[in-house]
């Protein structure tokens, strides 16, 4: 029934995870260039232009696919890991920042998932990694995910990666949740994704949540992350000693501590 390569997987680790995929002979997985952690002998690595999902679409097809990938700001190439050996072989892909790896069985999810760009880690060969344009100007500008998101299509497994702890929510028809912009990782295409002004100027300025919430209205599944990478990066950047941040932890003296520390 399914055209995809069926892959078995196991996720290791708690906060800094990696996923190990078991490939039967002649089975293959695709991954973002640079995502591989290790692979067993017998697995051949091949770099392809585009996402490798359409093998027979010819040059223009792969050029279009690659062009779309360029728009999402990703590498033009993807890597295919093919088990050419005898027996089952394993290949592992690691997340590049603290967070969780989410396995998505696309067939069970209706065949299509829209996710934050950069969140794709790897997938069974045959899953197409395309782009989904945000067509609402306001959502594109203030929704926290930009105008371009990734669209995963197919019926096999795809692995997505997001920061912090993942929350998977099922929204009933008409059910609405407001989400801090940037915390959205993925959603089913049946979910309406919009923005909403926080409501009061005081909240907008001092509420610390920015001017807009992202609103998600059901029906459908959504995945939320607790710690977007950009937020983590901001915090790290702010305390970098080179930027004037303190290298000591939690000193009440703050700036005075620096003076006393001889700096």
């Amino acid at each position, binding site marked *: 029934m399914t055209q995809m390569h069926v892959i078995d997987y196991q996720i290791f680790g708690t906060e800094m995870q990696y996923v190990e995929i078991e490939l039967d002979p002649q089975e293959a997985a695709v991954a973002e260039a640079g995502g591989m952690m290790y692979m067993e002998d017998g697995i051949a690595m091949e770099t392809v232009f585009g996402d490798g999902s359409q093998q027979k679409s010819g040059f223009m097809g792969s050029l279009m696919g690659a062009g779309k990938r360029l728009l999402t700001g990703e590498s033009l190439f993807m890597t295919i890991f093919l088990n050419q050996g005898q027996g089952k072989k394993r290949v592992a892909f690691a997340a590049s920042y603290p967070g969780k790896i989410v396995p998505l069985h696309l067939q069970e*999810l209706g065949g299509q998932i829209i996710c934050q760009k950069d969140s794709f880690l790897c997938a069974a060969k045959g899953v197409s990694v395309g782009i*989904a344009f945000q*067509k*609402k100007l306001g959502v594109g500008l203030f929704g926290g995910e930009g105008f371009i998101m990734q669209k995963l299509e197919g019926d096999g497994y795809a692995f997505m990666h997001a920061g912090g702890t993942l929350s998977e929510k099922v929204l009933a*028809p008409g059910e609405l949740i407001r989400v801090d912009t940037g915390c959205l990782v993925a959603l089913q*295409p*049946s979910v*309406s994704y919009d923005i909403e002004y926080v409501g009061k100027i005081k909240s907008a300025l001092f509420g610390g949540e920015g001017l807009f919430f992202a609103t998600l*209205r059901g*029906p459908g599944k959504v995945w939320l992350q607790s710690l977007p990478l950009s937020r983590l990066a901001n915090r790290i950047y702010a305390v970098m000693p080179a930027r004037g941040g303190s290298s000591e932890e939690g000193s009440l003296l703050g700036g005075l501590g620096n003076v006393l520390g001889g700096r």
Partner: protein
Amino acid sequence: MKSFSALYFGPDLPAQGTKITVLPENDGLHLQHCEISGETQEQLVAYDELRVSTGGFDHDQIILMWDKNEKTRSLILADKTTQDFLLEEAPPALAAKLAQCKKHINGTRQRMRAGWLVLALFLLSPFILLGVLVWKSDNVIDWAVSHVLIEDEQKFGDMVFEQYRPTLKLITQGEAPRVIEEIGDKLGLDAPYKFKWHVADNPAVNAFAIPGGHIVVFTGLIKAAQTPEEVTGVLAHEIQHVVQRHSLKAMVHNAGWRATIAMVTGDWTGGMLGGAVTQLGVLKYGRDKETEADMKGLALLKKIRVDPNGMVQFFEKLSKSGNGAPIELLSTHPSSTERMTALREAIKQQEPWHSEPLPYDWNAIKSSLPTR
């Protein structure tokens, strides 16, 4: 009524929705073969219970929502053909509710098309810009050239000629250069340029003009001509290339492309001026410029009272003959019967003028040229 398929969502249904068949009847929507907790049942949803909205990631899906047994359920129509079917053929009770939705969906589709158009324009803008530049290059060059002073053009022409001179076997002694200069000076008497005439030993039937007033005539052309009138016609034509600044424009054009290509490829070693100079012998002006030179050259002939038929004859003779000698005049001057006809027409339309035969013995001039 025809049925359509839609995705059915509810709190007790799978999150990705269940595909079901819906039959719109007059009393409401009949949901067929929908499986809830394992059992197949048919449901009827009355139209007045329905709430219609649009949503989904692309905001282009139709959502039909209703409450039953304190549970909210919905049908989602994502497929465009299904949407069109429902929008066009829904029973009146539903159509009234869909009216707002229809407007919204159409608006979304239009915005989407506009968005794609903007994106395509944005991505293609470098090419479009380049295209406009190529298309308007003549106007740009005309504007640029109109700001060049004649003195500067002459200095530039002298420089170009000096670079080009070593490749020419110039003939300075004898009858031919003297006669060419004499005819030329007569033709260029009222022109703002001071023409400098040169005869070069080259079997090609050709003559060309350098910006600023240097005009080189090849011995091949002198030998191919029967009468002085024929040569005078060609000289009048070449003078117009200088006066109308065709050669300057062509060189600017070439240099512009050279600069563009050099900038794109990052290869400046070719030397822009040198490249332009070697191209000079084969500068092409385009048909409209040739015709302009023909017509204004004709007027010039009229002014100095030279028979214009020589000019026509010579061009005609060249286009007919195929006698070995390379006729570059024709390859660089795209000759066509249309041009000949236009020239003849122009002669016919003007009042015939009294022409005086030029006092030169052309055969003697030809025999004064070095033979090979």
